[in-house]
């Protein structure tokens, strides 16, 4: 019998992560696109790091950082009563870092492709940066925003290494679908494992299908 808890937990994690990521990534991508500071290339490289870094490396350092025995973890616990190792909150922070490039890059690419004259026209029409961002820039990169949303959500669903390192395997707290799958394999329950695996597989396929359809439609000039 398939257990639903890991699915609910995974869905919750991916939703919270995606929403927070979106709020963080729009200003970050905006800054990366329009800033003239050279340091942006360093920031861009850091943002993209999770793309090529083994997740266990990221997880390992986060585990160290979050540990109450170390300065950062101690600080969080003392001042905010927050523990990030082996907790759902810790998974959210780790997932945000892990999926950051999947949200930032599509938005950044979308903004880069818009002609600068749109921003300049908006300024000469008396509008400030925020109005320009909300009424001109974001509505014109809708396809990129949808891609960013879908990819970040899916990437968070597919996490394994980082979750295992930072969250462990605590039912209803950190045991997401990919961990549950690993657990079932360890216990030789292949049938159960297969149910988890098939669900993840179908989800990943549908996600990519949506991304390609959205991009295809926008190339045809259809309004989404």
């Amino acid at each position, binding site marked *: 019998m398939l257990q639903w808890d890991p699915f609910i937990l995974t869905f919750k994690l991916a939703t919270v992560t995606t929403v927070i990521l979106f709020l963080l990534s729009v200003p970050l991508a905006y800054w990366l696109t329009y800033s003239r500071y050279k340091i942006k290339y360093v920031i861009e490289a850091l943002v993209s790091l999770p793309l090529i870094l083994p997740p266990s490396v990221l997880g390992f350092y986060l585990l160290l950082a979050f540990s109450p025995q170390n300065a950062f973890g101690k600080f969080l616990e003392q001042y905010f009563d927050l523990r990030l190792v082996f907790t759902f909150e810790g998974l959210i922070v780790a997932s945000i870092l892990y999926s950051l490039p999947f949200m930032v890059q599509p938005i950044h690419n979308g903004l880069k492709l818009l*002609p600068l004259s749109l921003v300049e026209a908006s300024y000469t*029409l008396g509008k400030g940066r925020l109005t320009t961002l909300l009424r001109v820039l974001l509505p014109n990169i809708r396809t990129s925003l949808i891609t960013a949303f879908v990819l970040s959500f899916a990437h968070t669903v597919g996490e394994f290494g980082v979750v295992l390192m930072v969250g462990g395997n605590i039912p209803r707290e950190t045991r997401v679908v990919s961990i549950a799958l690993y657990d079932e394999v360890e216990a030789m329950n292949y049938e159960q494992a297969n149910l988890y695996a098939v669900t993840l597989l179908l989800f990943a396929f549908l996600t990519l299908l949506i991304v390609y359809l959205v991009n295809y439609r926008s190339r045809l000039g259809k309004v989404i």
Partner: protein
Amino acid sequence: MIEVSIKKKLFSALGKMQLDVEFTIQEGELVTLYGPSGAGKTTVLRMLCGLSSPDEGRISVRGQPWLDSAKKINLKPQHRDIGIVFQDYALFPNLTVKENLRYALKKDQPGAIVSELLEMMELTNLHDKKPELLSGGQRQRVALARAIVRKPKILLLDEPMSALDTTLRLKIQDYILRVHEQFKLTTILVSHDIMEVIRLSNRVFLMDHGKIISHGGPTEILPIESLKQMVGKLLD
């Protein structure tokens, strides 16, 4: 009166160039910055609207300083009373014609001007169309109308007709003259089309390599060769 005196080092495809221009325009004039591409014309326009900054200089409009590098004054584009038509029109693709115009409205500015301009530019029928569905000439008119919505004192046109064919150019030139008169604008046009310059402007500033090399009435100062070419074209 608009007084401009600006200097800036430019790095173009042709190498380094020192932009160094000084000119005065009276209110209500329609003047042209004429010259080959790379002469620095567009850069002058961009500095007038605050989209780029000179290394040093002054821009004052009706005695009010918009830019004074010595006093560290540099008004943002939002605070300069200016309308500009970009070379690529820069219409917002997500907004309809009418919404593009409405976007330009100042806070608390009545919306009547939008309908007035739509009618004047013969765009009323197209008001609910997105820019991608419009022809070049129609886009051009929307861009012109949008630049006027805030009733600026100065209108800047950056080679506004370079992408249009001759018949359309003549039509757009009429629209430009009409808004220039009706809204009592001071208009600065950047162009390298000699017919356009003669038809539209009272005065021409001839630019080359970042400097104004002469100025005066269009037929007085335009190179004789260009005038001959134009006569040739007309006869054709």
